[in-house]
């Protein structure tokens, strides 16, 4: 049971109660809006759709529209589901059913949501001050999408209290702070930064899908960004852009993937004046901790220091990190969903850690989830696609370590006997390409195997399951 803070504000109230409201802005690739305008106006096109008490699917293409809509919907709507821009529209039906959605918010183009049979509210990335929407006081439920084994997203239930719990104690409103993240703010890592900006009443510069890194960094420079967050993969992209010194952040934050010493050292060399920290967080477990000593892994005292009053309690059980705190999600939405936490309230992160000396190091995952640049891939969803190919008997999809994106998806494929024989005589490359083309047709690019290998056998365990190696 979560305890609602007595002074809990809604997003709109955080901005409204800000003495410096007029100063702050939220900036996207194609425009920016001041806090004052956001509080006093609306991004919704008309008042035909009421959001009061509604359960809303928020499926806007750009993040600025999402940000403006969120400020209005929090406190007004019963529930808001945040869809990142790359959410496959074919999953909308199951999301609507599992989250009991009754209203959809989209951008100018509503072709993906028109057939859903629900009232549609259209939002844009500008604010109409003639048409204000009141700020509500309701405790809105926030739902984030997390990848699932079958490819359909899991719906992770939070509220503003759990989401901002890591922020309240740590962030003070500092005039000079301008936040930016390379993440999409509709994912947990990016949302944390957006909420830090709103709660701290600081300006926030959003990322934009497909924007070249040089153009993005130029935008960050233009707004004098000081605090910047991203995954190790995002940061490697910055370091390889040749434009890393366009910005001079005082605070560099990494999260979303295992952080190695190499990227920490490279960032320190590029931004010698910046504090560099790496945070551990997941959509389900929330923010676990933040490491500021410039070293990979985390101090064992975070686990051993058993302060029962600490905000976050962590333990290692069966090799994996478990977290209990007010920051964790409360449950998955939908029927027949597994419990998100153990009976005593610990979320099993599935991340395996190893104690070496006085420090824990991340060594992989218990489940075989592959983390490609901060995006999770379940092997099973890729195997399902490969196994549909007429020449394939079975396949094993796994992660392969990679110095650019942390990991990549690769596949071992066992062909049907007849196909094996003909494959010996024919071009293996053509068959591999044919299998990969089927993957490319239905999977996002990061889930398509980077490499296919034909094998003569795949190990099967006593229980009939494929034996998966863990890196």
């Amino acid at each position, binding site marked *: 049971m979560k305890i609602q803070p007595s002074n809990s504000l809604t997003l709109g109230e955080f901005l409204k109660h800000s003495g410096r409201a007029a100063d702050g802005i939220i900036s996207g690739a194609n425009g920016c809006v001041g806090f004052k305008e956001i509080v006093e106006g609306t991004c919704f096109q008309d008042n035909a759709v009421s959001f009061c008490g509604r359960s809303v699917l928020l499926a806007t293409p750009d993040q600025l529209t999402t940000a403006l809509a969120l400020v209005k919907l929090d406190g007004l709507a019963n529930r808001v589901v945040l869809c990142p821009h790359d959410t496959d529209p074919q999953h909308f039906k199951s999301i609507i059913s599992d989250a009991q959605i009754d209203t959809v918010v989209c951008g100018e183009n509503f072709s993906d949501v028109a057939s859903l049979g629900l009232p549609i509210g259209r939002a844009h990335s500008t604010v109409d001050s003639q048409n204000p929407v009141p700020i509500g006081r309701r405790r809105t439920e926030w739902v984030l999408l997390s990848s699932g084994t079958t490819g359909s997203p899991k719906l992770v239930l939070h509220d503003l209290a759990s989401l901002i719990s890591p922020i309240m104690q740590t962030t003070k409103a500092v005039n000079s702070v301008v936040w930016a993240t390379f993440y999409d703010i509709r994912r947990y890592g990016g949302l944390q930064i957006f909420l830090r900006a709103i709660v701290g009443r600081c300006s926030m510069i959003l990322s934009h899908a497909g924007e070249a890194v040089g153009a993005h960094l130029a935008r960050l420079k233009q707004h004098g960004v000081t605090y910047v967050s991203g995954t190790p993969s995002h940061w490697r992209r910055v370091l390889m852009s040749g434009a890393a010194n366009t910005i001079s952040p005082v605070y560099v934050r990494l999260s979303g993937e295992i952080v190695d010493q190499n990227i920490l050292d*490279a960032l320190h060399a590029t931004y010698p004046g910046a504090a560099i920290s790496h945070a551990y967080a997941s959509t389900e477990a929330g923010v676990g901790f933040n490491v500021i000593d410039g070293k990979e892994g985390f101090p064992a005292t975070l686990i051993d220091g058993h302060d029962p009053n600490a905000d976050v309690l962590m333990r290692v059980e069966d090799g994996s990190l478990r977290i209990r705190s007010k920051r964790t999600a409360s449950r998955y939405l939908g029927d027949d969903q597994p419990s998100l936490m153990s009976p005593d309230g610990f979320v099993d992160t599935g991340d395996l850690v190893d104690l070496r000396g006085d420090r824990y190091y991340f060594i992989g995952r218990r489940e075989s989830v592959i983390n490609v640049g901060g995006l999770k891939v379940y092997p099973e969803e890729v195997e399902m696609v490969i196994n549909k190919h007429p020449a394939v008997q079975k396949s094993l999809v796994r992660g392969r*370590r990679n110095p650019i994106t942390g990991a990549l998806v690769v596949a071992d494929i066992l062909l049907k006997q007849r196909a094996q024989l003909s494959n010996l005589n024919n071009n293996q490359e053509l068959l591999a390409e044919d299998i*990969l083309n089927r993957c490319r047709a239905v999977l996002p690019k990061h889930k398509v195997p980077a490499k296919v290998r034909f094998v003569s056998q795949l190990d099967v365990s006593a229980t009939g399951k494929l034996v998966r190696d863990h890196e």
Partner: protein
Amino acid sequence: MTIRSTILVNIQKIAAAYERDIAASLNDDVALFDSGLDSLCFAVLVVRLEDELGLDPLSSVARFPITIGDLIKLYENSAKQ
């Protein structure tokens, strides 16, 4: 095939497979992220180069390469060691 041509041929192949528009000329001064490839494509390139050349210099690199010339030099130096 030389290291240089292995790298350049793979950039072309990966750009085609991932439907990326490749820069008209891939000379040494072109910045990697102006070549047309994105992070995912570079990650794939690194995997292919590891398999074809047996080299993985990026895993322990102190300074990340910025241009195509940097990348080729990194692999050539790694081969000499």
